[in-house]
């Protein structure tokens, strides 16, 4: 038993014991413990194995920078690999498991890598495994991949929920330590909207780990009283368990709140994590400082810990990390640890101070070795002794823990995420945040300040300054005095010479000092090259502990200052953020919004099978009992439309109502064909081009009045077409009086198609819709029997006598029911988009399968729709470019397989007979294909080079992807009723 729980003290709830397991062993802790604290209380120092050499590793820190104590928490769909035990809050029944070891943590085969370490220096893999080349994927790489990585993720479904929210405030304060609390109090008392966020589950920051007194209270009680006051202020929001991970443009901060990460069984009414987008007018980073490890031989042995962490475990969790603790320091922090340990009766083996002299005082009776250094440590799974060296003499000192401190690095990551580079301070021997403007200020230790008293004042003053920017002046918060603080200054010591073992800089990635030397020798001296070549700073802690040491070491090797070397770039995320939190509720079927047609319920009760079409669910086909395949249903629907009549939901088409005295002029410029003189009461097929002359979208334009139109777009392009029209109206021709609004949702629209369509429609409509009164391309408002007003369009996509009927959406289902009833004696059937597609292919009508963003109007046989007469329309000028009018462009044709049993498939390419398949010989491709139940064989639309001249030619359909090659005959793309007789019935 070396590390243990003290019999009293700490900020844990001894009345609330919690049981958990680590690698199957049951342990006990208290509410208020982190997993690391509870493991230490159970004498579990060994927690993991390192990445490359599989060296045994212990807990190093007491916070989010932990490189070693990564465990998997939970199991099944809740398994969370790489979780830092130093921040995970324990709960009853928590299951924690160590990682990257086999077969067990204590006996890990991978540790053999340590023996090979001379061969495994930085970048060794770039220099070997090259022969034979096939062995890379088959042998070397799988071995490397299996050895690499840390925890194991589960593919089981996550049973928990996530969500996102926005928050807004005048002042965001990140970090609830001494500076953050005083900043919050300053702004909160003045009634400003304050958000105080801290990654810890308990607010108070370093005050929770301190043994000093503030005013007449212990530091932690002082923190509690401030927090209680803040909680009572209505404009202050306290957000514990909330990590601000990113600073984005416009003062938006990304933060993730652990809502139910600390409970045994999360409630399904709440998320486990919540992503916050916090919009702040001003922000203060009171994020504290990170203690730097010392880089000495054997500094990775379990039991070697940060001095500050030793104090946190001692003072906050009442856990002593050892019974005989040695201290290696180059500043005041080591002495603070010694003082607090001694106060709890823990033996101090020695204080080894890298400095020759200092003003720090050791506790009475404790030996101080000034100007000494640690050059090696001993012990198998835990430190048992260290070897100190001074003036050339070695001394072995027995200890069961070693607290180290190499000084402090302000936590400035967030301030540097938007391009600002850290600034080296000779004075503080640390990188400080750059001046990023008045919106974001650093406070307290994050600004390089040292003592608690100074940090508290700095927090207050920075809040006052931030509020002054906002034009708010606030009274001074009176800050009580701090008793018992000692000098915390330090001298930098980048690495300790004379190491007898590997001296690690990046613990997790196993990067040691010699790796930097090698990188230098090989030319990777730029700090970004050094990072990428050695992988220092690329582990899950992103170099929080090691980067500044790495910079100091590399700068030293190059004989320059850290200021000259600079840092690598800080980027989000400050600490890793789960996919779940960032995805929020946008998962599974709710990954994207679902739009429903007003005829959705009608389709459903008629047996529709739905298909995703953009955000819509559309009816694909309507299955009847006894139909075994979708083809059976579709063939029946098509034949029924051609022979009798069918009803199809086309509500998803974009519908735009256009008004204004210049509406006709505007549409004339938007469409490539003439719209100016479209008569009232008439519809016209319209083609829109992009400005580069390629077809953009098609639809119908109907004139309802002199200055009033309704246009339709395809379902897929409804949004884009609307934006395109708005762009044209607002930026090209703002002088035109044209106004438009989407009415897509107002109308349920149905296509009634087939030779019996009029017989059916006339039963519902009061008006005369005979062929004479209402010919092809007629448009009018009609009254339905039953009193509903509707719009009737005589337009056809199927090539049959057809109407589109638009009724107010709420009546859609009732009207569709009525049409079905009226049609029952005429053999009506509902049909879906699959049948619609067959009908249009048979008729040679194009969709976005043909209008694929590369085709011109002429390519698809619609060249006549590009007006040569109009002075201007979108796409006119560039449509005449040489390449868009070249004679060998592909053109729309029809195809029939010579062997009628063959099935044409979209995506197949076309070759001349006898030609080898090659890019040069490629003649085109099939854009749309289907079985034509009318013709009784497969047909296709295709784009074929100079296709319109080649009707009757036989070409080879080449589909190597699906192993097909057969002949087809080129024909007109109109397979059914080429004279359009049926449209005019």
């Amino acid at each position, binding site marked *: 038993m070396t590390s243990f729980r003290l019999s009293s003290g700490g900020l844990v709830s001894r009345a609330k014991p919690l049981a958990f397991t680590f690698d199957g062993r049951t342990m006990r802790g208290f509410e208020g413990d982190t997993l690391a604290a509870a493991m230490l209380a159970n004498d579990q120092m060994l927690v993991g194995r390192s990445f490359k050499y599989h060296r045994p590793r212990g807990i190093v820190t007491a916070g989010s920078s932990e490189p070693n104590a990564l465990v998997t928490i939970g199991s099944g769909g809740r398994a969370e690999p790489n979780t830092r035990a130093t921040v995970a809050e324990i709960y009853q029944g928590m299951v924690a498991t160590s990682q990257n070891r086999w077969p067990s943590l204590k006996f890990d085969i991978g540790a053999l890598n340590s023996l090979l370490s001379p061969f495994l220096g930085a970048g060794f893999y770039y220099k070997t495994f090259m022969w034979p080349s096939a062995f890379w994927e088959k042998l070397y790489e799988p071995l490397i991949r299996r050895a690499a990585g840390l925890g194991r993720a589960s593919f089981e479904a996550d049973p928990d929920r996530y969500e996102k929210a926005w928050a807004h405030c005048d002042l965001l304060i990140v970090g609830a330590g001494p500076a953050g609390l005083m900043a919050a109090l300053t702004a909160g008392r003045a009634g400003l909207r304050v958000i105080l966020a801290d990654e810890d589950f308990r607010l108070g920051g370093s005050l929770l780990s301190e043994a000093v007194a503030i005013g007449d209270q212990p530091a932690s009680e002082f923190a509690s009283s401030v927090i209680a006051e803040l909680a009572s202020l209505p404009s202050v929001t306290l957000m514990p368990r909330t990590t601000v991970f990113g600073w984005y443009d416009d003062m938006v901060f990304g933060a993730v709140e652990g809502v139910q990460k600390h409970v045994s069984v999360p409630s399904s009414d709440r998320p486990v994590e919540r992503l916050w987008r916090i919009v702040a007018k001003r922000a203060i980073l009171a994020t504290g400082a990170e203690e730097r490890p010392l880089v000495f031989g054997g500094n990775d042995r379990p039991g070697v810990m940060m001095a500050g962490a030793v104090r946190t475990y001692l003072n906050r969790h009442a856990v002593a990390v050892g019974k005989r603790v040695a201290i290696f320091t180059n500043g005041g922090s080591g002495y603070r640890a010694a003082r607090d340990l001694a106060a709890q009766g823990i033996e101090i083996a020695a204080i080894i101070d890298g400095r020759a002299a200092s003003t720090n005082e050791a506790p009475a009776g404790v030996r101080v070795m000034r100007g000494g250094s640690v050059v090696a440590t001993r012990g198998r799974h835990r430190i048992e002794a260290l070897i100190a060296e001074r003036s050339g003499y070695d001394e072995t000192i027995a200890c069961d823990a070693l607290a180290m401190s190499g000084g402090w690095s302000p936590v400035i990551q967030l301030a540097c995420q938007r391009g600002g580079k850290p600034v080296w301070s000779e004075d503080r021997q640390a990188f400080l945040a750059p001046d990023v403007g008045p919106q974001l200020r650093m406070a307290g230790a994050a600004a390089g300040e040292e003592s608690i008293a100074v940090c508290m004042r700095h927090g207050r003053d920075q809040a006052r300054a931030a509020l002054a920017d906002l034009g708010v002046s606030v009274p001074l918060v009176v800050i009580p005095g701090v008793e018992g603080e000692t000098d915390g200054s330090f001298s930098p010591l980048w690495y300790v010479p004379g190491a007898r073992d590997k001296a690690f800089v990046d613990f997790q990635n196993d990067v040691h000092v010699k790796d930097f030397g090698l990188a230098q020798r090989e030319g990777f001296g730029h700090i970004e090259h050094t990072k990428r070549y050695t992988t220092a700073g690329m582990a899950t802690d992103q170099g929080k502990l090691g980067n500044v040491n790495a910079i100091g070491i590399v700068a030293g090797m190059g004989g320059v200052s850290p200021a000259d070397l600079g840092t690598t770039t800080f*980027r989000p995320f400050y600490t890793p953020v789960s996919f779940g939190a960032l*995805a929020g509720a946008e998962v599974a079927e709710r990954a994207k919004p679902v739009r429903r047609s007003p005829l959705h319920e009608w389709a459903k009760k008629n047996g529709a099978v739905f298909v995703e079409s953009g955000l819509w669910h559309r009816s694909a086909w309507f299955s009847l009992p006894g139909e075994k395949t979708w083809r059976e249903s579709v063939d029946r629907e098509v034949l029924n439309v051609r022979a009798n009549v069918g009803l199809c939901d086309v509500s998803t088409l974009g519908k735009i109502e256009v008004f204004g005295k210049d509406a006709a002029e505007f549409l004339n410029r938007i469409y490539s064909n003439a719209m100016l003189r479209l008569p009232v009461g008439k519809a016209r097929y319209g083609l829109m081009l992009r400005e580069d002359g390629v077809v953009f979208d098609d639809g119908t334009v109907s004139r309802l009045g002199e200055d009033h139109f309704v246009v339709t777009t395809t379902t897929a392009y409804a949004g884009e077409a609307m934006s395109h029209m708005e762009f044209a109206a607002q930026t090209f021709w703002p002088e035109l009086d044209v106004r438009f609004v989407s009415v897509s949702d107002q109308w349920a629209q149905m296509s009634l198609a087939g030779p019996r369509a009029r017989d059916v429609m006339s039963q519902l409509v009061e008006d005369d819709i005979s062929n004479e009164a209402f010919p092809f391309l007629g448009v009018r408002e009609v009254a339905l029997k039953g009193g509903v007003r509707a719009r009737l369009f005589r337009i056809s996509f199927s090539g049959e006598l057809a109407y589109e009927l638009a009724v107010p959406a709420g009546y859609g289902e009732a009207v569709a029911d009525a049409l079905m009833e009226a049609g029952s004696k005429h053999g009506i059937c509902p049909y879906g988009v699959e049948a619609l597609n067959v009908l249009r292919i048979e008729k040679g009508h194009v969709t976005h399968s043909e209008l694929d963003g590369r085709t011109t109007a002429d390519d698809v046989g619609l060249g006549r729709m590009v007006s040569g007469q109009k002075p201007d329309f979108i796409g006119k000028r560039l449509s005449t470019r040489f390449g868009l009018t070249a004679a060998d462009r592909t053109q729309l044709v029809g195809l029939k397989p010579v062997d009628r049993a063959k099935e044409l498939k979209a995506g197949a390419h076309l070759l001349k007979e006898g030609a080898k398949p090659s890019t040069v010989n490629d003649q085109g491709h099939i854009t749309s294909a289907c079985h034509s139940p009318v013709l009784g064989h497969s047909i296709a639309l295709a784009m074929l080079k100079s296709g319109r001249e080649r009707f009757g030619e036989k070409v080879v359909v080449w589909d190597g992807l699906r192993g097909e090659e057969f002949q087809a005959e080129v024909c007109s793309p109109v397979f059914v009723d080429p004279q359009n007789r049926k449209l005019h019935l």
Partner: protein
Amino acid sequence: MRYSAFSIVKQALSGNRNWAPAWREPQPKAHYDVIIVGGGAHGLATAYYLAKEFSTANIAVLEKSYIGSGNAGRNTTIIRSNYMLPGNSAFYELSLKLWEGLERELNYNAMVSQRGMVYLIHSDSQRDAMARAGNAMLMNGSDAELLDREQVRRLLPYLNYDHARFPILGAFVQRRAGTVRHDAVVWGYARAADSRGVDIIQDCEVTAIRRQDGLVTGVETSKGFIGCNKLALATAGNTSTVGRMAGLDLPIESHVLQAFVSEGLKPLIDHVIIYGTGGHFYISQSDKGGLVFGADLDGYSSYAQRGNLAAVESTMADGVALIPGLSRVRALRAWGGIMDMTMDGSPIIDRTPVDNLYLNGGWCYGGFKATPASGFCFAHLIARNEPHPVARLLRLDRFERGFPLDEGGKGPQPNLQ
């Protein structure tokens, strides 16, 4: 110094103290036959092939920062050649073939890993488009396969089959596609070019291009004037800025694309997986264990090399929608690269109106996979003054003449490409 298992052992026995620098750090000469601006993967590959295949001596690569500091080190490391249009397909296929021999070519293990790419299909129209592309690839001598839903399920059982907003109907597969360790490509080409005498000059920013009588005579740099007979630009992310120094008008708009890496995990995802309809997301796992993933451009002009949170969120959401098991995996780091988006989504390797000035740019987000072919074809163009056959359609004047290479069919709107 040749790299091999033997050299590793030998060096280790002498304490790894005798490794030679991977490249020299020369001072710039007064004049070079060819100056390549841009020490990214393309620039270095160009220099290497110029020296090796086209016997050009006296070459310099000028890099304003450290080599590989631009997009070469900011991508998602995917290589593939699933391009449909003549002009792109042969070019990217050449690139894939060069990747396949890269390690022996360079004596540097860039970890070319042909793990296979699985591009998921979520609609009939997408399948048709994939089939068209796949057949175009097969015609061009590349590899492509179509899988149905059950075949995909057997290959990638962890995708979302039962609760998907957009059900998986099948997949397009290119087995020879995969990933490459991006930094190693830069270092491998740099080392190989250096060994053939190419001067790689870092921290040397070009500030002006000097011209006389319509020809480039050299460049002003942060290390002084350097003369040249031919000047070649390979400055992805800064193509317009550098091009303007020579008066080039370019069909390019620069955008930011974010990419991400997760915490290291034991082997989880063995392929490159791409999700492109209904959402957008692509992912693979590095040899080190991190999941490397990304999605769409942020959508606005930017030179900031960092992105916004909205794009991060949509990327992650699409990731979880596709692979529900990612839910509890944590993203470690996000970064942004500057994509020089052209008006048709395809790159430019061409001569310019200035006779001895050559342009390589407009790589959109397809630059990394193109590296070897880009270098090879650009070197060909510079040395022979005529385009390499597989790059002959990647011309600068194709927009004006009406021959765009618009794989996506999005038209001249760069942020949609």
